[in-house]
């Protein structure tokens, strides 16, 4: 379908030479096998489209889990010069600061064997999930604005978790520069009842067990051991984030004729970083990012409580410690190596994870020598990977790596493939207890609908943009 010629650079990288209005080349991280799947959709074209944006630096990048999005491909990474570059809501996505967090426990798999049905049922009952789900928290407007300004810090202050959780959250769970007054009434309205809700679609809360360790030293630094039980939470900024994206997209689309350069896709609508619109989008996006961090913090807190109640164990006994929290839909100001210098740029990661190297000052002391924990949720039932950030990612990919498995089947294809099957029973036969709110969710999210996560992660490992540390296997899962 795509007319673009990709040139194979090495086993894991493919170049899209700059042509037409492209200001830089594209670079896709992929194996030969994954490339065959990618070539079928239009995502390489989207990598090329992103390269048309002014101020883009070095390459328009795509990670091996790349798939067809709108505007930017999912799995896209692009960095922009602060003086003549742009910021684009489409380069972040609707679910601003969608991300995941991994909570390690002191439990071993034998401690919960036979209790999974009970734990999953309790989680399903107590953690609000599903389409448009509302939680028990009803925020006043002033309280909601505090959430938007303070992110996870608000949550910890309000009693959801402890201060140490902030140390192991990307950016401490709070993005600077959020201005709640730049978030619309509609977005505020949608956010009021959704804090502490998982949402629907690919969002989930999964109980997992560490199944394999690839790097003993780093796994030890992350506090992970074989057969240890952990919880992965994947959620974002809910309706508030979608509305922020949509509001600013509508506003920026109107300004496309004034930008002074042609855009290959309206969904790439953007604003110069130093323009009023660009600054205002960033300030509103930061609010949604903060909301997402507070959301995952609250979800984790309730998960801890469910474990305490269901297993009748004390917090000290369970030792549920946040290993790390990463965001994978975001635009951020970061200082990165560029042409032998350290340069502050605006990095867009749309379905990509930060992968910062050992020694980076933004990492907490406990991870100074290991590098940043990178969390890669797999499809339902396959489990997840824990990787570590590397110097090579810092040098080559603006400190970024993949974010997940990436879809290969559309949702309707998956629904078709799931017709007449009980996905729940199939999962149970594989040893995974699943409960989902949505009728079609289990079919839409069936494992075959996703790329092979092992292959995606191996490409990142072999390309050196993150290092394999551990693999976790799913035991139980609640989905929206």
């Amino acid at each position, binding site marked *: 379908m795509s007319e673009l010629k990709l040139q194979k650079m090495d086993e894991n990288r493919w170049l899209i030479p700059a042509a037409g209005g492209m200001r830089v080349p594209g670079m896709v991280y992929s194996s030969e096998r994954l490339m065959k799947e990618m070539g079928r959709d239009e995502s390489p074209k989207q990598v090329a489209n992103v390269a048309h944006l002014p101020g883009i630096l070095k390459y328009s990048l795509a990670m091996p889990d790349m798939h067809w999005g709108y505007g930017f491909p999912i799995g896209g990474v692009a960095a922009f010069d602060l003086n003549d570059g742009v910021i684009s809501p489409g380069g972040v996505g*609707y679910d601003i600061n969608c991300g995941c967090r991994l909570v390690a426990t002191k439990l071993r798999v034998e401690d919960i064997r036979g209790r999974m049905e009970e734990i999953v049922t309790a989680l399903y009952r107590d953690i609000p999930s599903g*389409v*448009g789900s509302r939680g028990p928290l009803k925020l006043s407007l002033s309280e909601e604005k505090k959430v938007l300004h303070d992110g996870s810090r608000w949550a910890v202050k309000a009693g959801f978790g402890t201060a140490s959780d902030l140390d192991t959250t990307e950016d401490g769970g709070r993005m600077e520069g959020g201005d709640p007054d730049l978030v619309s009434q509609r977005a505020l309205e949608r956010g009021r009842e959704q804090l502490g809700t998982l949402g629907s679609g690919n969002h989930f809360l999964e109980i997992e067990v560490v199944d394999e360790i690839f790097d003993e030293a780093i796994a030890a630094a992350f506090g992970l051991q074989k057969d240890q039980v952990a919880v992965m939470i994947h959620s974002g900024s809910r309706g508030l984030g979608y509305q922020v994206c949509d509001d600013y997209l509508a506003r920026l689309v109107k300004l496309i004729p004034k930008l002074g350069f042609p855009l290959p896709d*309206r*969904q790439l609508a953007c604003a110069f970083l130093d323009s009023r619109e660009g600054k205002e989008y960033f300030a509103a996006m930061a609010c949604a990012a903060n909301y997402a961090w507070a959301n995952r913090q609250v979800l984790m807190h309730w998960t801890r409580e469910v474990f305490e109640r269901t297993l009748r164990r004390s917090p000290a006994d369970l030792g549920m410690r946040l290993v790390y929290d990463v965001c994978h839909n975001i635009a951020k100001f970061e200082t990165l190596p560029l042409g032998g210098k350290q340069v502050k740029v605006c990095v867009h990661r749309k379905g990509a994870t930060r992968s910062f190297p050992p020694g980076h000052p933004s990492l907490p002391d406990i991870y100074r020598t290991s590098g940043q924990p990178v969390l890669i949720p797999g499809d339902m039932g396959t489990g997840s990977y824990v990787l570590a950030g590397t110097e090579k990612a810092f040098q080559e990919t603006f400190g970024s790596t993949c974010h997940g498995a990436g879809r290969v089947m559309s*949702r309707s*294809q998956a629904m078709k493939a799931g017709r007449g099957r009980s996905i729940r029973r199939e999962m149970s036969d594989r040893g995974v207890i699943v409960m989902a709110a949505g*009728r079609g969710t289990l079919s839409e999210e069936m494992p075959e609908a996703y790329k092979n996560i092992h292959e995606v992660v191996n490409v990142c490992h072999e390309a050196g943009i993150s290092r394999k540390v551990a693999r976790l296997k799913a035991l139980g899962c609640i989905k929206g």
Partner: protein
Amino acid sequence: MKRYRVFDHTADMGIEIFGETQKALFIHAAFAVFDLMADLHSVQQKESHRISVEGADREDLLINYLREVLYLFNGKKLLLKRFSIDEIDDRHLTGDVQGEIFDPGRHLLKREIKAVTYHRAEVRETEHGWQGKVIFDV
């Protein structure tokens, strides 16, 4: 004539919409949003809302119209099933929507539509009537 048809898009969901007139096409698109989100059989027409939308061109107008009806669900919890348009050109429309407040006890939600995207949006008049295309983020 079929009102709409779902087409495949890897991560998201697209619809092709059909109508004998531009007005019908827009109404069918709004219906599709709610038909994809919920089982509309149990939804009654208890409440009515007036809608007025603007856009830079036909496509932009369609997207803004769908944004508006989607917001009535997300912000006002209204499940809509009936749509009418009094006036429409390429840049403005006014009309009414009818439905009722979502009641989890009686209504079944099928999926979430996060947003209406501009990606590949299309509205055109053909020999056989009007056709449109929109991709939703789901």
